[in-house]
């Protein structure tokens, strides 16, 4: 069964271990600015919200790419950017309605979560279980799916 990241903001303490693990594994540096998962801090409510790509079925990023640089990893289901093909045009960064594809100025390419090849570092680094990697059926991504459906320009057949 395919797995996905399950995020429970209620358990997040804002320690940023996930961002450090992500940037180190993917970019070789401990730099939250280079992380593909971001923890948003709602100061006024004392609340933290970890946020990253849900590997959505619509895959706007993949369809918008003019040079076939984003493909689906068959094993994990992740939408993966091939750095050697990406030209850095950034169209995927405006096409993704979740804002989870970002431009990396230092490489001139875009970057997004690729589930670390099926063994996500952020989930392993999270000390409170706010980020877990579980069977896809359990994640209850309904809210994001609804959001996706609303943004959908009408890609799916109605019949």
């Amino acid at each position, binding site marked *: 069964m395919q797995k996905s990241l399950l995020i429970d*903001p209620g358990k997040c303490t804002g320690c940023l271990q996930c961002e450090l693990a992500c940037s180190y594994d993917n970019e070789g540096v401990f730099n939250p600015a280079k992380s593909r998962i*971001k923890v*948003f801090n*709602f100061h006024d409510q004392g*609340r933290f*919200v970890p*946020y990253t790509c849900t590997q959505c079925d619509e895959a*706007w990023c993949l*369809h*918008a790419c*003019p*040079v*076939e640089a984003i493909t689906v990893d068959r094993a994990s289901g992740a939408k993966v950017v091939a750095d050697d*093909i990406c*030209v*850095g*045009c*950034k*169209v995927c*960064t*405006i*096409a*993704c*309605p*979740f*804002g*989870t*594809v*970002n*431009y990396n*100025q230092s490489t*001139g390419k875009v970057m997004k979560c690729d589930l670390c090849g099926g063994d996500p570092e952020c989930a392993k680094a999270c000390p409170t279980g706010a980020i877990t990697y579980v069977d896809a059926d359990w994640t209850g991504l309904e*809210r*994001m799916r609804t*959001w996706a459906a*609303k*943004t*959908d*320009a*009408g*890609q*799916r*057949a*109605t*019949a």
Partner: protein
Amino acid sequence: MKYVIAGAGPAGVIAAETLRKADPEGSVLMIGDEPEPPYARMAIPYLLAGDIGEKGTYLRKSKNHYKDLRIDYLQDRVKKVSAKQREIVLDGGGRRAFDALLIATGATPIKPRVPGLDLPGVHHCWTLADARAIAKRAKKGADVVLMGAGFIGCIILESLLSRGVTLTVVEMAERMVPRMMNDKAAAMLKRWCAAKGVAVKTGTKVTKIEKSGRGLTVHLDRGKPVAASLVVVAAGVKSNVGFLDGSGVKVKQGVVVDDRLQSSAPGIFAAGDVAEGPDFSGGWSVHAIQPTAADHGRIAALNMAGHPARYKGSLAMNVLDTAGLISASFGRWDGVKGGDFAEAADKAAYRYIRLAFDGDRLIGALALGLTDHVGVIRGLIQTGVALGDWKQKLMSDPHRVMDAYLARAYA
């Protein structure tokens, strides 16, 4: 079913692939008029900059992609369409019958009526052939004039600079990228370009180009003439609809299509830069952008194959990298009557954001120097989510757009 696709750009290729999936038995013929495998015009600036080779511009990388999918790719041009006879006539003389036809013939650059645009050394930057010609002349130290500082002009600007040329940009309008930027953002962009050593002349027209010695002289309606060994013309594009005269297909700016991407002639569809389709922000528009071409191609193909799919409309949006300064525009950034705006600018840092609202909904945005999570702007606009108390928070700090999204739509 016999499917014919006129055009081999992103809309045509995605339609062909979708047709193959939706109707495994049908025959799919895709016709392109350039002597290249299907490629992305969007990748040309990166080819000119030397970041990629020509193969890097190809839409699909595997060698036998089209053959494997049983998509016939014919290099020819559609000369005439007959809706009644359900056939097309090709430049090469042949005819092809169709059960469903997709018009995905894209756009061509506009050639302003300026004497001298046919001289050697004057090029558009639209095709791979154009790119090869430009690469020959845009050598280190060469004087280059770029005519037009619209969206395409500004993207080419970067690749020309990276080749080490001395660049003068001439734009007729009073500001750069007039269709995706307001005065404030455009002024920042102009200042940025000047700091990179580009001479930007806005509110200036090219009146004539003349041959002089081994090069060219570009005459302007104000100021001194500029010497150049290469002139690149980027004065906008127009939909390729000329071959549809007398076809029975309704054409305005582009081929007018309904929410199934079908034209006025049953069985004839249109997609991409040539299609004037439902606009998310209201009415019908030609949105000559990659995401629209991809959506159009897929939805048109589903309908062609008899799987009804409706299109909710394209959102005008662009992202532009002009010599390192990244800008983006979405939807109705110019606002609507009675709507509010939120704005924040940091001139020294070349950062600017402007949000446009209708009531408590986001309807458009401009951003300069901001790249993180910009996609949520599209999401917020297209879902039409009510921002509630977050509208006031955005009015006082428009940079909090990601927080607003998380608060109102996610967490």
